[in-house]
Structures are given as structure tokens and as C-alpha cells.
């Protein structure tokens, strides 16, 4: 489906501002009298706080105030649970231990805030760190997931019996019966370690309280402006209308900026009120590594039951999921893992069990991919192990088990992050796999190139995997579309933008409907002063959900314009059309009224007004899907492994993706490439590594290795399969996480293939040359 601008690779409306340095980011904003905040953070991961003496810090010139938990009185209370518990799943156990605003009595992870310093500059605030005397009694730290649940393990939350944060079991069919009938049952222990969101711009907050108007303005680098506004207003006892959250330009989100209950979110608003001066806090990279949320430390005990023909009879997966020191974001991440473990394949019997564990590490909330990559990793690895056991080609075994294109809509029996049973709405997985295999040149590589390269002593390998991406989940988003007297269109929606291209995609949707130039559509996102209903930017839902609301609102405006146009032009409605910023008579474009003039006419300031009508060329609409739409795809790659150094180079990558209707193919491509670079990071570079004392060993970009543009493969081929979703009028599905999801699994398969003579079986991610060296050594010693 494509139109004049919808479906076209329109260049981005926002780029002139970004490229000329005019775009305003939070740290560009300076207010008169503004103060700066810094948090003194705990070095210990687990310790009792004996005392905190801030008296010397208060004497330092330029320090305005220093606060510890004691100073906040009743205002100090654990933050809200941002995502509800999974009560929809029978038998589920969930212990909510939400984030505390600032450590009181005890610290539960290294990086947890102990004191808040407000000073005339950030420099002075940091100088005051050295003045504060903290006495702590260190406790044993809980880091290892299995040990955390052993009797006698130190408790992260001492009011609980154990470190078990949650327990959820879901099953469709009967796995044990299926396994009993299988020719092969293959079991493995699979581990996945943590990664950071690592947005280019860290988090940040600027709070300005106006004591005269009793209104608060907050600039925030957030993915959830409305929930942030709501929770701040509630805590301060203000109306939502007294608090305005504005998101300026944001330099990336990738998940952690969905949090609205961190120390800064909770404490800075009240302190700004107390001091009656604006306060700015810009998170630095060290704080971001230590104390913003991160993702996906999981340990899986997984098994697959197959027939000798490679037909999957069942899958069982028992896994531990590390939620960190608190669980403010409920179970979104592990539920995504559960829904994404088997979603590409017909797996009649599937049992998935998660034990969510508290530990003395930073809190875990979604990071691009959000649990999905590891469901996919486990499943794709299991299939590869099975293929290896059966001596079957990895592509062939996948082909035999993929869900067919005639099976939709397909209920999965597994409840996901939106607390309804997952249903696969549309797609064509066999076609995606076929295309990816073709793009990468699979047959030729296996039959001709690889044997030739082997003979030359080269170790190149190929991998092909499939994945799904649950996207565009509810609950809902809304939008207001307004035609101005200037003849241009204004669109505002509640979600915020972190660089995805919303200012362009939303403009395309509105422009197509209203027949205006895409450059004449001004889009405002994430400003509660403009639009104040909605949930936020997560789960690849910006285009599918907010975009659908914009489409609906624009359609309403179109109807209004046609109705009024028919009256003013004196022709029936079906002879009125919108084009080039005008409302005109079909077939005779010389008879028209400009949209600007129409906007004026739609808002009479004298005379009478039609009963029941609404003024202006304006409309508001909301959209909420019954369940999320599912994007999917297949990824193939060729790697070159240096058998001496065990360094791996991804030479060529081919990805075929279905995100339903492509609103802007260029932006889809950008999302996929960005996701792939994150996936490559998760496969081979990025790792948040904790030691057994809960100390983060990789708290800077010196040690946390983010793949750079120069680390991307030389050749990336993209293919699309367009199967529109029936869940929204435009047929859209999300694509924001696609590239990140299948990459570690594909990388593992390709590396195994390259090192086939080593009988290597990879069951962990991320890898590194050093780790591969160890694994190869172990497997050849066997």
C-alpha cells in the first residue's frame, strides 16, 4: 500500500534541525538561577548504611543543599509499579519491590544513590562527593542466579523468604507426553549476559517550579512523558494539568528511558519546589552504566523433542531471569522471552517456566529487544543442536517446522507483556526464510565456496535463523490533528521521539490523508502541554499505535473538511477532494478553498454555530489494538573466523523482514541497520560484566565495547516481505527491535559452522575471541 507520500522514502523533516545543530537537547537548555544536581552513589553492591555525614559538604562554597533519605520524611516511599503484575497468568507469583527514591538503611546495588547534592554547578556538586562521610557495613552480595535461590543465600529484600521475585509457568499441549514419543530429546544449559541501552545521550531532567502560577515545567529525556508527568503530579499532590513534561530532541532511548521512578524523577521535583529554583540533572556515562537500568541476564535449561525427520514435537524451557535489585517494571522482559521462544514454529507442546530473581545488580528493564532476543536465541540454538544430532541441514529443519502463511490468525496459548494471549496476526515465515537464503546465496556457499575456502585453510561459516518481533502492543495512543489558519497541519501525540523519524512518518500519514505537502506537517511529540493522553514509546509501537491514531484523527479532519467544503463550494460531498493544501471540486481544481481559509471558516467568531458540531479543522482520535501485531523475519550471515586469533569478522549479512506496510522504506532500513548493530554488539562485543561482589567491571566505553560504524559488516542486504497487519487500518507492524533480535543466534550458528571441525556447540552470548578460544580448547580436549 503506498500513496503520494505514504510508503515513500521521504527524507526526514527533522534532519535540517539536527544537521545544522539547531535541534535543542535537554543539556542545551539554560534557565536563570538554575542549579545542578549530582548523586553520590554507593560503591558497595550490598551494605547496611550506618551513617551519612553531610556537614562538611554543606560548608563547601557553591553547595546549596545536600539531602539523604532522612530529609524526605513521608515523601520517601518506594516508587510505583510501572507495569502491573502478571495476574492474568494462572498460578503466577509476583513480589513487587519497586525502586526506592534514594537508599535508606541499606543499599542493594552498586550505583544506588546515597545522597543528592544541589550546587551552583555540576563541578562543585561533584567536588562535594569527597566531603561526605558514609559509614557502611558491607554484606555478602547476591550475583549468581542459581546461588541466589539456594537456602541461606543473603537476601536482597529481607522481608521476603528468598530472592525469588516471581515465578510463572505457562504450557500449551503437554510437553512430557510429547517428549516420551520423540526420537530425540536434546537438553542444554544456555546462558545470556547483560547489555546496556547505551543511548548516545544519557538520561536527564530539568525541573522548573513556578511558585506564582503553581505550575511545574519539566524537560526530560524520556520515552514516557505522560506516565512521568502522572507519577510526579500524584506524588506532589498536584493536578496533572499543573505539571507539564516536555521532551526536547532526544539522543536515543533504547529502553531504559521508559523508567519514571528513578531517584531523579522522584526527588528533583520536590527539591525544586523546596528551593524554588530550577534544577538540572544530566546523567553522566558512569552513572548510566552503573545505575540506569540494563537488560537480560538469563540462564536457561532448555530442551527440544524431535522426530527423526526433524519435526518438532515439543520444547521445554526453565529459565532464571535476573531482575536486579528491584522489579519496578514487572515481568515485561521475561514474558517477552516466553512469547518469543517458539513463535516462528509449529511447536504443539511447549512448556515455559521462569524464576525471576532479585540480585545485587542494577535493575533490569527492557532494552531494545526486551527479552525477545533470548527467547529466539534459545529456540534457534535448540533447533541447531537438533539439526546437528540428526545430521540435517539447519535451513531444512527450519523449513519443516515453520508456521505456514495460511495459519493466521494463530493463537499461541502463551500470555505476553500485554496480559492477553498472544495471537500471531499475519505473516509469511517460509517466504522470509526462502528470500534470506536466496539473498545470502546459501546453496552456492555451502556447495561451492565453503569447500574451496576450507581447502585454502580459511574458516568461513554461514548461519540462517528466523525470528518474530511482537510489536505495536496496547494499551492505546492518541493524537490531535489540526489545520492551522496558515494552511499547514499540526499533529500532536503523547509518545516521545528518540530519533526514530516520527516527525517524518507521522507527517507522511497526515499528509497523505489531507493532501498537503509533507513539509507542511508539523509534528509535536512528547509534550504533555500539547497532548496528554497515552503510554509511551516502547515495544516498536510508535508507528503502529500512535501512527494509527494520527491516521484516524486525520481522517476525521478530512471528513470535516469535505463536509464544510461541500457546503462552501456548493457541490455534493462526493465531488469534493483534498489536494495540494486545498479543498477543491473534483474534476475542476480551479474551484477551491485553501485549507487555511477553511480553518478560519470552521471557527466562526460571530454569528451562529451548528448544534453538535465541533469547531476548527481539528480532530482527536485514539487507537488501541486488541493485541500486538507481530513482525518477523529471517537473518543470514557469513562470518570469517581467524583460527589463530579467534577473531570473527561478519562479512555479509542478509535480512528479510516483514513489518507490514512500509510507511517509509528508508526509515525502516535505518531501524533495521541500527538494530543489527545492537545485535552484533550483543553477539560479540557488549557485555555488562559483574564480579561476584556485585561490582560492575565494564562501567565505561573503554571496557564496554559498543560496535561502531566501522565494525559493521561490509555488506548488508535487505529484503522485505509485506504482509499488512489486519489489526490497524494501514496494516502497519513495528520494526524497531527487529535487527537486534536474531543476531546473536545467527552469529553463534555461523561461528559453529565456520569451526565445524572443532565440534563446537555454543550455548552462550555474548562471545569474544578470548571466550571462543576457551570454548574451542574445551571442545577439542573432549
Amino acid at each position: 500500500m503506498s500513496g503520494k507520500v505514504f510508503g515513500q522514502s521521504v527524507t526526514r523533516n527533522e534532519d535540517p534541525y539536527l544537521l545544522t545543530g539547531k535541534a535543542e537537547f535537554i543539556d542545551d537548555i539554560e534557565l536563570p538561577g538554575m542549579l545542578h544536581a549530582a548523586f553520590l552513589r554507593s560503591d558497595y553492591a550490598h551494605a547496611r548504611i550506618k551513617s551519612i555525614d553531610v556537614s562538611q559538604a554543606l560548608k563547601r562554597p557553591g553547595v546549596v543543599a545536600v539531602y539523604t533519605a532522612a530529609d524526605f520524611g513521608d515523601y520517601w516511599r518506594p516508587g510505583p509499579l510501572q507495569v502491573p503484575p502478571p495476574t492474568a497468568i494462572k498460578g503466577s507469583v509476583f513480589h513487587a519491590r519497586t525502586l526506592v527514591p534514594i537508599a535508606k538503611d541499606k543499599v542493594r546495588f552498586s550505583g544506588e544513590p546515597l545522597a543528592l547534592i544541589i550546587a551552583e554547578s555540576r563541578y562543585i556538586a561533584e567536588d562535594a562527593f569527597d566531603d561526605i562521610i558514609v559509614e557502611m557495613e558491607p554484606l555478602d552480595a547476591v550475583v549468581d542466579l542459581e546461588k541466589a535461590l539456594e537456602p541461606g543465600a543473603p537476601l536482597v529484600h529481607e522481608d521476603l523468604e528468598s530472592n525469588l521475585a516471581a515465578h510463572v509457568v505457562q504450557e500449551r499441549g503437554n510437553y512430557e507426553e510429547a517428549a516420551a514419543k520423540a526420537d530425540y530429546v536434546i537438553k542444554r544449559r544456555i546462558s545470556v549476559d547483560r547489555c546496556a541501552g547505551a543511548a548516545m545521550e544519557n538520561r536527564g531532567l530539568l525541573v522548573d517550579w513556578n511558585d506564582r502560577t503553581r505550575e511545574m515545567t519539566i524537560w526530560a529525556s524520556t520515552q514516557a512523558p505522560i506516565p512521568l508527568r502522572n507519577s510526579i503530579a500524584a506524588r506532589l499532590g498536584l493536578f496533572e494539568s499543573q505539571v507539564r513534561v516536555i521532551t526536547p530532541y532526544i539522543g536515543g532511548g533504547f529502553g531504559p528511558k521508559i523508567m519514571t521512578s528513578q531517584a531523579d524523577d522522584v526527588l528533583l521535583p520536590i527539591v525544586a519546589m523546596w528551593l524554588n529554583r530550577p534544577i538540572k540533572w544530566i546523567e553522566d556515562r558512569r552513572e548510566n552504566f552503573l545505575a540506569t537500568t540494563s537488560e537480560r541476564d538469563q540462564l536457561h535449561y532448555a530442551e527440544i523433542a524431535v522426530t527423526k525427520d526433524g519435526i518438532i514435537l515439543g520444547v521445554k524451557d526453565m529459565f532464571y531471569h535476573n531482575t536486579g535489585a528491584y522489579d519496578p517494571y514487572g515481568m515485561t522482559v521475561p514474558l517477552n522471552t516466553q512469547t518469543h521462544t517458539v513463535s516462528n514454529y509449529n511447536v504443539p507442546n511447549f512448556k515455559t517456566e521462569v524464576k525471576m530473581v532479585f540480585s545485587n545488580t542494577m535493575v533490569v528493564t527492557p532494552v531494545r529487544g526486551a527479552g525477545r532476543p533470548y527467547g529466539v536465541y534459545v529456540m534457534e540454538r535448540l533447533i541447531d543442536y537438533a539439526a546437528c544430532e540428526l545430521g540435517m541441514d539447519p535451513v531444512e529443519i527450519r523449513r519443516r517446522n515453520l508456521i505456514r502463511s495460511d495459519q493466521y490468525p494463530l493463537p499461541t496459548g502463551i500470555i505476553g507483556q500485554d496480559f492477553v494471549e498472544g495471537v500471531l496476526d499475519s505473516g509469511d515465515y517460509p517466504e522470509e526464510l526462502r528470500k534470506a537464503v536466496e539473498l545470502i546465496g546459501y546453496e552456492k556457499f555451502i556447495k561451492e565456496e565453503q569447500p574451496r575456502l576450507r581447502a585454502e585453510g580459511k574458516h568461513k561459516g554461514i548461519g540462517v535463523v528466523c525470528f518474530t518481533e511482537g510489536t505495536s502492543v496496547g494499551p492505546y495512543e492518541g493524537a490531535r490533528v489540526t489545520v492551522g489558519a496558515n494552511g499547514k497541519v499540526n499533529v500532536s501525540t503523547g509518545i516521545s521521539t528518540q530519533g526514530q523519524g516520527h516527525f517524518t512518518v507521522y507527517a507522511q500519514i497526515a499528509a497523505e490523508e489531507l493532501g498537503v505537502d509533507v513539509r507542511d506537517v508539523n509534528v509535536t511529540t512528547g509534550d504533555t502541554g500539547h497532548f496528554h493522553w497515552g503510554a509511551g514509546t516502547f515495544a516498536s509501537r510508535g508507528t503502529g499505535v500512535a501512527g494509527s491514531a494520527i491516521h484516524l484523527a486525520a481522517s476525521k479532519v478530512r471528513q470535516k473538511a469535505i463536509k464544510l467544503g461541500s457546503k462552501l463550494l456548493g457541490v455534493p460531498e462526493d465531488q469534493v477532494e483534498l489536494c495540494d493544501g486545498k479543498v477543491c471540486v473534483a474534476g475542476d481544481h480551479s474551484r477551491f478553498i485553501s485549507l487555511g481559509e477553511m480553518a478560519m471558516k470552521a471557527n466562526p467568531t460571530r454569528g451562529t454555530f451548528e448544534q453538535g458540531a465541533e469547531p476548527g479543522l481539528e480532530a482527536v482520535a485514539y487507537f488501541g489494538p486488541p493485541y500486538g501485531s507481530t513482525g518477523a523475519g529471517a537473518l543470514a550471515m557469513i562470518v570469517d573466523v581467524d583460527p589463530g586469533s579467534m577473531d570473527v569478522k561478519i562479512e555479509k549479512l542478509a535480512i528479510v523482514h516483514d513489518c507490514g506496510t512500509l510507511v517509509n522504506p528508508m526509515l525502516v532500513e535505518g531501524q533495521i541497520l541500527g538494530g543489527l548493530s545492537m545485535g552484533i554488539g550483543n553477539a560479540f562485543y557488549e557485555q555488562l560484566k559483574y564480579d561476584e561482589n556485585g561490582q560492575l567491571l565494564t562501567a565505561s566505553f573503554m571496557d564496554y565495547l559498543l560496535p561502531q560504524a566501522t565494525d559493521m559488516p561490509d555488506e548488508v542486504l535487505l529484503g522485505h516481505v509485506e504482509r499488512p497487519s489486519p489489526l490497524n487500518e494501514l496494516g502497519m507492524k513495528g520494526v524497531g527491535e527487529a535487527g537486534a533480535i536474531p543476531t546473536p543466534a545467527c552469529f553463534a550458528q555461523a561461528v559453529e559452522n565456520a569451526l565445524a571441525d572443532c565440534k563446537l556447540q555454543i550455548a552462550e552470548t555474548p562471545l569474544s575471541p578470548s571466550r571462543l578460544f576457551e570454548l574451542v580448547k574445551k571442545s577439542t580436549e573432549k
Partner: protein
Amino acid sequence: MKPIPFEYYAPSSVAEALDTIAELGYSGKILAGGQSLIPSMNFRVARPGALVDLNNIPELAYIRPNGDGSVAIGTMTRDSKVEHDAEIKRRFPLIAEVMTYIAHPQIRNRGTFGGAIAHADPAAQLPAISLLMNADLKLLKKGGERWVQAEDFFLGPFMTVLEPDEMLAEVVLKPLPARTGSSYKQVSRQRGGYAQVAVASAATLDEAGRCKQVRMVLISVGDTPILSKEVSRILVGQKPGQEAFEAVAEAVAKGEIDPGTDVHATADYRRHLTRVLVVRSLTEAFQRAAL
């Protein structure tokens, strides 16, 4: 991640700079390209009381080919200038090649040739290359000058013989003998990242095709760049070849290096990688020497 308060001096001549560092003593630190110093100040790992910025002293940035085949490089010469200099490329192709491994163009546009050597990071390329070529280093202080060879310059990680009132002013690269080939082999995690291990070597053949002279430096496997002694003990006077290179690799890995384990790699892996890269580097150096 903000530095502690510090004073800032921006002398416009070498004499003025030397006066300033003499006066400041231990509390002062020289600021060259700032690509290493500024981040460590932001982490508050480095806490200098004062910075003496050499960026306003044009007389410290030059590449001067000498008549004897050597090339003198002023300490403030940016890495990218060295990388693209035609004379350097002609006389010391290895240096031009190695420069491309140092970070990325943006950083090489700021980072300085002398700054990297004075910084003495055991994982960095330029200290190792200066050692490979046993460069002559000109050190200046108020009213004094001394010359130190690279072999005598490095004391430990980030430690050199430089006194607090001294400045590295010039690096002189001596000409290579005829029939010399050189090679640099590095494995780093990211493109432009620090070496997990790297090996640089320079080999000279005699007329009969035997090894006349050979030097080899190992990077990231000890407290300083390590100049191998085994390589010349085993190879000089011999016909170079795979077997001999493997013997060198074995001797180096067993006796000359002391790699550590960190988040990126185990000591065991680094030892293995040293073996691999020694053989590759020597193979290439001797091949190039024979050309």
C-alpha cells in the same frame, strides 16, 4: 565525570612552557592532544593542580627529514599529520601503517605523536614503535636538554624517565638499514580499539638472505612495551623460516611476556595470541625485507 578544579596555563613559546613547568613541579601537567589526559581528568583518576597547554606553541609541531636519513618529529605533531606525511611514508612505511590502527581519524586529528610516547600506555602503538626503532628522544627542561633512547625511556605503565619539570620535545627516528622489512600485527576488539595483543617487528637480511638483525616489540602483554631479546638470539645468522619463527614464538610466550587477565581476555588467550602474532609478524617482516 567532571575534573577537579585546576589552573590553566597556555604558554606561547617553549621557553615559557619550560619556565611554567619548572615553577609548578609536581602539581603541573602538560596538556598535548588531551585525548588521554582529559578523559582521565573527567574520571578524576588524574587530578592535576594545573595544566600547561602546549597547543599554542607552533614551534613544537613539525616533521623534519634530516640529511642522514633520520626524521625528527616535533612532539606536538598530530597523529594524522604523521599518518599522511609523504616522507614518513617513504622512509618508514610501518609508521604510516601503524597510525591507522590508532583510534579513529577524529582522535588522530587531536592526539599527538609525542603525547602518546610520553603517556607510555603499555597497550598503545607509538611507545612500542619508538622502542622498535629505538628512537632518540629529546627532553627539555629550564636551562637543560638531554637525549634518551626509547630503550631507556619507559619505566612502567604510564611511567617514564621524564621528570616533572621536563618535557618531551622531539622524537628522532633513525634510518633503517638496507634490506629491512617491518610488520605490525594487531588484534583488537573493535576497529580502532586498543590492542588485545600486538607485535611489531623489523628484520634486516644480509646479502646471503640470512637474518642480519631483527627487533621485535610486544604490546599489551606487560607493564611496558616489551623489546624481545629472544628474537635476535634465535634468528640472527639464521635463514628465516616458519620453524624458526615458531621457536621464537614459543620462547617469547614462555619467557618474555607477562600478560594479565581482564574483562576482555584471559592471560592464557593473550599468551596464545602472542604466539600467533609473533609468527605472522616475523613472516611478513622477512618477506618485506626480501623484496
